[in-house]
Structure formats: C-alpha cells, structure tokens
C-alpha cells in the first residue's frame, strides 16, 4: 500500500462545475500538504501549500486538510477548460525536503 493514495480518475466535468479532488495518507508524521498541477508534457507546478490542519483559499481554489482523518482535499470552484490537467497531492514531514506524491488525478473540464 502506498503512503499516499489518490484516485487516478479521469474526472470529467462541465465548465462551471465545482470539482473536489482528494488524497488519503497513512503517515501521521506528515505536516506539510501541497497540491501540484501538471499540464500534459510539462513539469508539475505548485498550486497550494498548507501546514497542518485547516483550510486555505486562493481565488477559485480551496485546500482542506483533516489530519484526524488523514485526508486532504482540493476544491476548484467555477472550473474552466484551462483547469484541465493532472492534479498531484504531495506531503512531507517536518525538517525534510522529501516530498511524497499521490499518483495524480486527471481532470478534464469540457466547455
């Protein structure tokens, strides 16, 4: 069993929909939680970065961390075709540079 589990999708939604992407993890030592977006044939780019539990909002994106359930989510409001990409969750323990990634969820937003 992988340390971080993520539904690979694909997830196909119409433009304007609210999208929910999720990851579960097993290592309770994880303290930092990230979401990366990866367009086809490009490198991943950081979208959201949260520490410990709680919510963080940035424009149409909201990241949520529930450490008690070992569950993190990324919500995308008013989804756009330009949001079509693979979304990778990543996490790490304190005082380390080692990121553990989920397998990524492929999202397609159709007009």
């Amino acid at each position, binding site marked *: 069993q992988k340390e971080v589990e993520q539904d690979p999708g694909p997830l196909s939604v119409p433009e304007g929909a609210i999208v929910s992407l999720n990851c579960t993890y097993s290592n309770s030592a994880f303290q930092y939680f990230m979401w990366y977006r990866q367009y086809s044939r490009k490198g991943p780019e950081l979208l959201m970065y949260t520490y410990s539990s709680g919510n963080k909002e940035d424009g149409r994106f909201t990241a949520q961390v529930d450490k008690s359930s070992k569950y993190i989510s990324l919500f995308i409001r008013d989804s756009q075709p330009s949001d079509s990409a693979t979304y990778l969750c990543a996490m790490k323990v304190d005082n380390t*540079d080692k990121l553990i990634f989920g397998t990524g969820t492929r999202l397609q937003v159709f007009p």
Partner: protein
Amino acid sequence: DTAVSQTPKYLVTQMGNDKSIKCEQNLGHDTMYWYKQDSKKFLKIMFSYNNKELIINETVPNRFSPKSPDKAHLNLHINSLELGDSAVYFCASSHGTSGRAIDTQYFGPGTRLTVL
C-alpha cells in the same frame, strides 16, 4: 529567464547504452532533486543534493549516478539502460528546509527517456 531547465527534452536510446541528463537552475536555490515519473504519472523522488552534498538517496539501482558540479547544476548519469528505465525524469530545485517552514520545489520541463 528559465528557472529550471533540463537537456535533452527527449532521449531515445537502445538497451545497454549509457546516457546523461543535465539540469540547471538559476533561482539561487541550494537544493536540487531528481524525480522519476512512470507511465501512470506516479512521481517518485530519486535523489536530492544540498550545496553539492547528497542528502536523499532513495532505493535506486546503482546504475543511476547523480553528480553535482556546483549548486546550480545536477546531472543524472544512467549506465546500462534497461527497458524499465523508460519514464519522464524531472529535475527540481528549492531553497531547502533549513531554517524555512515552507519550501517550494520548482520543477523543470522533464526529460522523456525511451529505451528500446
């Protein structure tokens, strides 16, 4: 003004050959990484260097050897290539966690390696 660059972008080679991938960052970061992304998009760290010193060395065959001539460059040399080495290899860089609560890793565009 590319932040993290890799060469080559595509690499097609025969089994048994030796090849190198180069990475350079102009962000002034101290830490650099190599990741492997398989056909199912799973991204896994292979190595990291901090200021030319090897910090992370995951369970990777010793056919893979990273080399950091200075803190802006991290190269990956692969000996005796095998079919299973076919993947996309990403270089990344960051300041490193020393003294920082939040540390963003910036990824290069990737090198798509195909072993025939």
